[in-house]
């Protein structure tokens, strides 16, 4: 502890005494072990974090499974790229001291195994106990770089406010379906720190899903067919859409496409972009009819309307006009909208219990941003560029000087809001539900053994 303080103190001296012009608390941008040590020392919310993963089993109730949390795999990636898998912890204090000691650049959370993962070799020798994953949150990983063929503002790991709405769409669609269709309640959305979002579905029902059931859910969300080489990427067969797709289209995709992406991505602004959309029309004659109309409006550029809007309207009227109501074409407008907006999941991550996923409240080493929770009901307002960075947080800490109490430290920084959201909107309702389930499962078991005694 004392060492941490010293290091930061010396940092303060360097930065502040030399550049008095800056706001007194400014800490240079960046990401390094020293910064990280302060973060882990003063800010990381060990208590809430660990409480979450106990799922109520840390209580006094006789139905609690005391071994539960200790069978959870954590994995640490250290500064020099050393990768420590199969770490496990029995208490928040153990977790805290290990993180403080090792100062991992990344913390991943794995499944709960049948036995303590750090002792798996010992068990393997004793026979009987097989080392297999038994529980795991249902997780989703959505990455903006998978959308490179439908965004023109950025590519790869970059993201801006023009393409971030693609993530907003994904959150809205999945969150609604997970709640309304699948009946889940305890869902945590987290900014991945750089280029996407992670979703943790934590209901006990979700944690107990088999791989096959996970794959079924992932497939329920899948509309992309045929991989990179199939011409048509989205295929919506059938004369009407499944209620889930219909709702997604009406409530989210259509509006986002027409009101946001059409303009922000300039989807029809060049010959090449137009061609990409024409390629999605299965009938060549119709495609060339649309193309002709577009040519027309290029010559008579009197219209004050935005070219993207005009062309989209022209495409819609052509495709939906009476004479093209043929099967195949009927779905085409929707297919185009889906192609440009519908969530793209990393299916493998969701399908298997033993995938690791980065823990919330980690810091992304490239951006220095905290992996903060995102409130799905206010996800429209989420701005990745406004997420606190490590140096910003340290600056905020410096501004008021350290207290030893980490609770207070937290609340004084801009991370405070995120933590209190995590606590009140996610953790508390979750723990309440866990407690109820624990008790009712326990009572049912008591009842059962009573009955069998009566016989």
């Amino acid at each position, binding site marked *: 502890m004392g060492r941490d303080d010293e290091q930061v103190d010396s940092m303060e001296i360097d930065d502040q005494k030399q550049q008095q012009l800056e706001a007194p608390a400014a800490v240079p941008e960046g990401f390094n072990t020293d910064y990280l040590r302060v973060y882990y020392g003063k800010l990381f919310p060990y208590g809430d974090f660990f409480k979450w993963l106990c799922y109520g089993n840390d209580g006094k109730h006789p139905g609690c499974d005391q071994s539960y949390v200790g069978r959870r795999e954590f994995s640490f990636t250290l500064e020099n*790229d050393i990768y420590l898998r199969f770490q496990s912890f029995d208490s928040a204090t153990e977790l805290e001291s290990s993180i403080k000691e090792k100062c991992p650049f990344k913390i991943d959370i794995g499944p709960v195994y049948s036995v303590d993962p750090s002792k798996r070799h010992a068990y393997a020798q004793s026979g009987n106990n097989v080392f297999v994953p038994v529980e795991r949150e249902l997780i989703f990983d959505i990455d903006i770089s998978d959308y490179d063929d439908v965004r023109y503002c950025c590519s790869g790991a970059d993201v801006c406010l023009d393409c971030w709405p693609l993530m907003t769409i994904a959150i809205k669609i999945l969150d609604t379906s997970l709640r309304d269709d699948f009946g889940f309640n305890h869902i945590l959305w987290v900014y991945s720190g750089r280029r996407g979002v992670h979703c943790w579905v934590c209901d006990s029902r979700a944690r107990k899903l088999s791989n096959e059931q996970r*794959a079924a859910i992932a497939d329920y969300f899948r509309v*992309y067919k*045929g*991989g*990179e080489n199939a011409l048509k990427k989205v295929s919506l067969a059938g*004369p009407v*859409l*499944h*209620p889930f797709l219909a709702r997604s289209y009406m409530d989210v995709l259509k509006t986002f496409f027409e009101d946001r992406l059409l303009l922000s991505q300039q989807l029809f602004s060049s010959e090449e972009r137009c061609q990409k959309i024409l390629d999605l029309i299965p009938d060549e004659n119709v495609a060339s009819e649309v193309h002709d109309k577009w040519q027309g409006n290029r010559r008579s550029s009197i219209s004050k309307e935005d070219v993207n809007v005009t062309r989209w309207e022209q495409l819609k009227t052509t495709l939906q006009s009476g004479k093209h109501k043929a099967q195949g074409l009927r779905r085409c407008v929707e297919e185009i909208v889906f192609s440009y907006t519908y969530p793209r999941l990393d299916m493998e991550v969701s399908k298997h219990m033993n995938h690791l996923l980065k823990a919330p409240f980690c810091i992304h080493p490239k951006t220095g941003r905290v992996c903060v929770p995102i409130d799905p009901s206010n996800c429209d307002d989420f701005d990745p560029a406004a997420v606190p960075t490590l140096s910003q947080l340290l600056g905020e800490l410096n501004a008021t000087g350290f207290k030893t109490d980490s609770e207070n430290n937290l609340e004084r920084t801009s991370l405070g809001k995120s933590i209190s959201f995590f606590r009140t909107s996610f953790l508390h309702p979750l723990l309440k539900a866990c407690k109820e389930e624990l008790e009712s499962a326990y009572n049912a078991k008591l009842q059962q053994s009573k009955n069998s005694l009566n016989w």
Partner: protein
Amino acid sequence: MEIVRSHRQVAAAAAAAGGDGGGAGALPTYKAAPQLEVRLEEFELFAIDRLRVLKGISDGLSRGKRPEEMEKLVSELWKTYMRHQDPAETLNKDIISHFVLRLVYCRTEELRKWFLSMETALFRYRFRLESPESQRMLMTEFQLPYKALPHSEFEAVKDKLSQVARSIGQSANVEHVFFKVPFEEVPDLVASRRVFLSKGYAYVAMSQVVSLVVTQFRCNISKALALTNRKWTATIKEQEKGRLTPIVEALSNAYFGPDYSQPKDTVDISLKDIDQLAKSSFPLCMRHMLDKLRENHHLKHGGRMQFGLFLKGAGLKLEDALAFWRAEFSQKVGSERFDKEYAYTIRHNYGKEGKRTDYTPYSCQKIISATPGVGDHHGCPFRHFGEENLRAALNKMGVGGHALEEIMDKVKNRHYQLACTLTFETTHGVSCDSGINHPNQYFSESQKILRAKNQTMESQSQSAT
């Protein structure tokens, strides 16, 4: 089940076994091994006939046949190999052959997986052919305690149910009997969006009940296989050393085709030859992935698995495999990230990490039934490419003209492996009677042909000098 050498009358025993083997009528559920005696000859013959059925199903699935086509195929296969005039005999054969194959296919993970999915498919299509009464009886037998949805509840969701029905191309007139079940119990219906979901429940139509039953069936058989495996290794194998064990071992090779997990007759291939070999002997799916890997210096998970295991099967050693993948990936993600995030799976594929089981290279059937997503390059080009892309890819292999049209024709009829076989024949100028059913088979047959050609050329040039 007791196995005897003597010729005994078994029909009567089988009739009695109807109850034991489980099953409401013609369709048994194989819950417990029947208490009946089996003659040793029948032990083998029955098993071979059932294997023919299962193999037929596996071929049908790998051709991407639709459910209705599968239904027809299964009923024909069954009629050809299993049906006897006397229903009691059929039932007898059905039960015996199932239990024999359980013994045959319980022994490795790969065998169990294959058997489980083929038996499940067989059961699924046979169930669809049963009468509604017998279907209901089977539901009871599987202890699926669902009551039909009460009228008031039905009315409330009727519109949605009809929307789902239309979305999968059925008439909007909704069926009237629905069951409301936790979605977890009908994963296949959820996966294909063939049910309406609300608050964690799936609304399953009477005509879809097969899914519920199949889930249950699959789960029972899967557990039973694990149990049989334990018994096999613990006692049966040793006890039956002189009698059943050799038959069982022979049976498992009878139709399953060779296992390419361990390169056998193949020579090891070395790193510097890969591009050359790809040009001469890789099937299209693997060439494509090599091209993409060289181009993007990256392949997604599905591609790494399919291509990585293929290379292993073709004889690329672990050290070379690591070097191969590192050389590409490090150009994109850097070698540190490669070592940290990707090397593990490669070692894993070679059984050096994790469970340490050897992973088997994927068969065509498995590759064809994959569902590659955006950015994925795995899968079978014959199935997953659009027409234009496929034509271009075949052109690049030097296939054109009449042969190309013939191949495209096979593709249109969804005979992907036949299309691949034709491609093989065109590029090698040799016929391939066994057909292509494994990318590693494609590779090794191609190598065999090329080696033979080289030898004749050598001997010719020798005799010339």
